[in-house]
């Protein structure tokens, strides 16, 4: 995969469901179309909820990376 620069990182590690998703939605709303936002989450619900929201809101889930004890979700605001 081509490396895509991240515009903003949200460190939501330690936040319980639905904190990480809510944080992501807030930042995406304020971002320009095309912006890449990365959210870090240690909440298990994020694994299903973040991809579900990204699909529903019709943005792009660029990648999901498992790290030590948390997951990084990279999302491009598509519209």
């Amino acid at each position, binding site marked *: 995969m081509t490396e895509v620069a991240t515009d903003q990182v949200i460190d939501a590690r*330690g*936040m*319980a*469901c*639905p*904190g990480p*998703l*809510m944080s992501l*939605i807030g930042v995406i709303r304020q971002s320009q179309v095309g912006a890449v936002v990365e959210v870090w989450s240690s*909440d298990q619900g994020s694994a299903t*909820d973040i991809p*579900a*929201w990204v699909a*529903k*809101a019709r943005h792009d889930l660029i990648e999901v990376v498992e790290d030590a004890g948390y997951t990084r979700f990279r999302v491009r605001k598509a519209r």
Partner: protein
Amino acid sequence: MDDGEGTLSIALLSGTDDKLSAAALLTAGAAALGRKVDILLQYWALDAFRAGNLTKDHGLAPEAGPDGAAAVRRLLASGGGQHWSTVLDQAKQLGEVRVHACSLSMDLLGLDRSDLDPLVDDVEGVTAFMLTADGQLVFI
């Protein structure tokens, strides 16, 4: 971005923190997906929405037991779990979420509109609530 899936209507009767939290989480999830959410506060849930009452300790449902109560305390102590009223407030900012106080329960508890927290939008009867309940109706 309502896709015509209808309103999620929640008849919220319970006044314990676990059930209030479950309702707030469901609301946030639905609002995130663009669903309209209508909450009708009845009985002990309405009592929890009195001004100044939101963040008081409302206890847990009896089935929580000591182990369940300890698990909830651990979550809150970790700082990761947000209070249900915060989750509900975020959901209201995120989407079309309306919180109604049931008029009969207002009478029952002897409450006036000015006794309620600003998270409550208005007072209405069950018929008005059912009028907009064109999707799923859940009871908590």
